[in-house]
């Protein structure tokens, strides 16, 4: 893409975010969006970022940081040399490269950290960042345990440094537009969200010589990950909390290693119910051996449904009244006969297959926008409002879900969380 093309698509992307963020009720529901999309013009005084973890996600993040107008990658760090090698082409030739994040922190010259390491290392890397006086942007999920999530929030508050977590859906124009339309009442009152992330692959990465399976496939082991819950469900639990404008009151669930019995420790099959005040529910399933229903949040209201991954909104369309349809045909044929009426007012429902309406589609740079927002926050030394509370609740929900499945018990929302 040429620079001009990128500027144009960037403008239309930002316009869409701003348009969605301007809807009624959106200032309260997504206060970060307008601030991030309203970021001032390019600045020579960019926020200097050190990236820890240049694996798959870290490299994507670097490319997105490079697209921003107010941030730059000033150093990279990974303790696995092949991943540093892969990341080097995306940074300037003079960008310092580290194998140990402590050396990077000691060297200085940074304003902020971006963390894309395995889940169990997030807390340590984040806290080390705060200790070094830096602001921190960390990938989701926040941490491996709820106390670690809380410690990260607490330390950010105590050190008055920004902590932002990578939940890019909060910057996605389709999601923002979906929320705007839900807030406008277009799908009625929301009572249920049916969310799923279904894949059909082992989720296992090939392990090169000289490294351990646990290092490469950290997602599959309990020390380092809660598996589907922290890696996938967090995103969708965030969406659920966001649309319900609440955190769950209780969660129950069942998890199993059902298909990939290959020595992994995390479930490859999870099914959970998150309850929300007023009887609302988020029903969640994730599995790794059937991709028919893919990744989606079906946000269900009394007047319609939103499927943001698909980018569509569906109105509840009742099946046609056959007698009235016949009347239409009769009139077209110039025929008049009695319309039988007063039959069933109740009918068993079949799945509806109407195409719905688009919520807007296109090339989106929501991950880039997260960083422009972060850069803005760092400059102002003021976190984007609302973001951390969303991320904290999503991580807690995913970890609480894991506990509920492990224990086979319904668990209530913890009362000991840090207030944001």
């Amino acid at each position, binding site marked *: 893409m040429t620079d001009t093309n990128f500027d144009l698509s960037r403008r239309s992307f930002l316009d869409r975010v701003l348009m969605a963020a301007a809807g009624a009720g959106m200032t309260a529901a997504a206060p970060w969006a307008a601030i991030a999309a309203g970021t001032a013009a390019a600045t020579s005084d960019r926020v200097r970022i050190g990236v820890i973890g240049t694996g798959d996600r870290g490299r994507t993040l670097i490319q997105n940081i490079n697209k921003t107008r107010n941030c730059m990658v000033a150093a990279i760090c990974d303790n696995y040399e092949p991943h540093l090698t892969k990341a080097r082409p995306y940074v300037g030739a003079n960008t310092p490269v580290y194998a140990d994040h402590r050396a990077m922190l000691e060297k200085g010259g940074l304003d902020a950290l971006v963390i894309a390491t395995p889940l169990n290392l997030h807390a340590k890397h984040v806290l080390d960042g705060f200790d070094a006086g830096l602001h921190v942007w960390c990938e989701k999920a926040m941490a491996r345990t709820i106390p670690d999530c809380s410690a990260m929030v607490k330390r950010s508050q105590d050190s008055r440094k920004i902590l932002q977590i990578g939940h890019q859906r909060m910057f996605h124009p389709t999601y923002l537009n979906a929320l705007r339309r839900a807030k406008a009442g277009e799908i009625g009152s929301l009572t249920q969200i049916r969310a799923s992330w279904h894949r059909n692959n082992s989720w296992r990465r090939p392990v090169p010589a000289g490294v351990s399976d646990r290092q490469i496939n950290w997602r599959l082991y309990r020390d380092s990950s809660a598996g589907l819950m922290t890696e996938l469900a967090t995103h969708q639990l965030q969406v659920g909390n966001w649309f319900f404008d609440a955190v769950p009151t209780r969660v129950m669930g069942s998890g199993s290693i059902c298909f990939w019995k290959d020595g992994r420790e995390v479930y490859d099959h999870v099914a959970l119910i998150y309850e929300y005040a007023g009887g609302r529910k988020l029903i969640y399933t994730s599995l790794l051996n059937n991709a028919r229903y893919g990744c989606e949040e079906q946000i269900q209201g009394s*007047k319609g449904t939103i499927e943001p991954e698909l980018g569509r909104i569906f109105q509840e*369309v009742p099946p046609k009244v056959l007698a009235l349809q016949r009347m239409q045909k009769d*009139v077209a044929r110039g025929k008049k006969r*009695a*319309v039988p*009426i007063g039959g069933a007012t*109740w009918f068993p429902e079949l799945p509806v297959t109407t195409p719905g309406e688009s919520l807007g589609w296109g090339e989106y740079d929501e991950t880039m926008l997260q960083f422009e927002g972060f850069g803005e926050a760092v400059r102002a030394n003021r976190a984007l409002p609302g973001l951390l509370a969303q991320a904290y609740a999503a991580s807690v929900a995913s970890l609480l879900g894991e506990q509920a499945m492990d224990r086979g018990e319904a668990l209530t929302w913890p009362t000991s969380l840090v207030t944001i």
Partner: protein
Amino acid sequence: MAVPIPTDVERFMAMGTRIELHRFGAAGADDALLAARRAIEAVDDALTIHRPSATTALNERLLAGETAPVDDPVLFDALVAIDAVHEATFGLFDPAADRRFAVAGWRGIIFDRAAARLCATTPVAFDFGGFGKGFALDRAGAVLRAAGIVSACLSAGESSIAVIGEHPLGGGWPFAVPHPSDPDDSLVQVELIDQSLSISATVGAGTAAPDRAAMLRPDDRAVITAPRCAVAVARTGALAEAMSTALLVADPERADRLIDQDRANRFLFDLPCATARASSARMALQ
């Protein structure tokens, strides 16, 4: 060949049922059906008791024994209409009747129109039920007429029908009310012009719906379980709904009086033998 008559349909869910608005002919504003839909949704929003609404707020006040202001204009108009149809049905249509409270009901409510407020001598709560559908179709009809529509058929859950003007091919709109337990047979046929039709029954597919409230006679709180079907045609949907409900719950004496008032438009059938109660109604069947 005749030029086809333009038609347009709006289908949606509201008032807990499926609504269809069929417009015929080229006359009238393009967005009339959508405006009519919005009018029905506004009635649903105001009168529903299944989610927070002006009606649930009113009910909370009345149940707490407090005087309740009626700020919502749609709810206010509905109460005005109810006052009229309660009278017209000898009190048999009563959206404030309650099995739990012996003396509850519209009669125990003081509706101060000038001050737009209600107070009740005993705890009461409104459940507008089918009346809401007729009232909503009235408001949608008013919107369509104001938009210049001259021929339309509005249906709310098939048991509430309203027509605007004549049938697109001229003359009345013919409807047949099927026998609830034998769809091939009909109880009665009617022709409507600028009128509304309401059907109430204690049997048939509709009554099997989950959560359907029992039919209640307001004064002695008798629950009507006998197989019956009542049909009423009236100038307004509000009156048609109230009348079919009233006929269904009426004792024999008041049923006869109501039918005698308007023999061509009020029918009551005791099922399964489908004999009409009043001889006039039976004649209308022939």
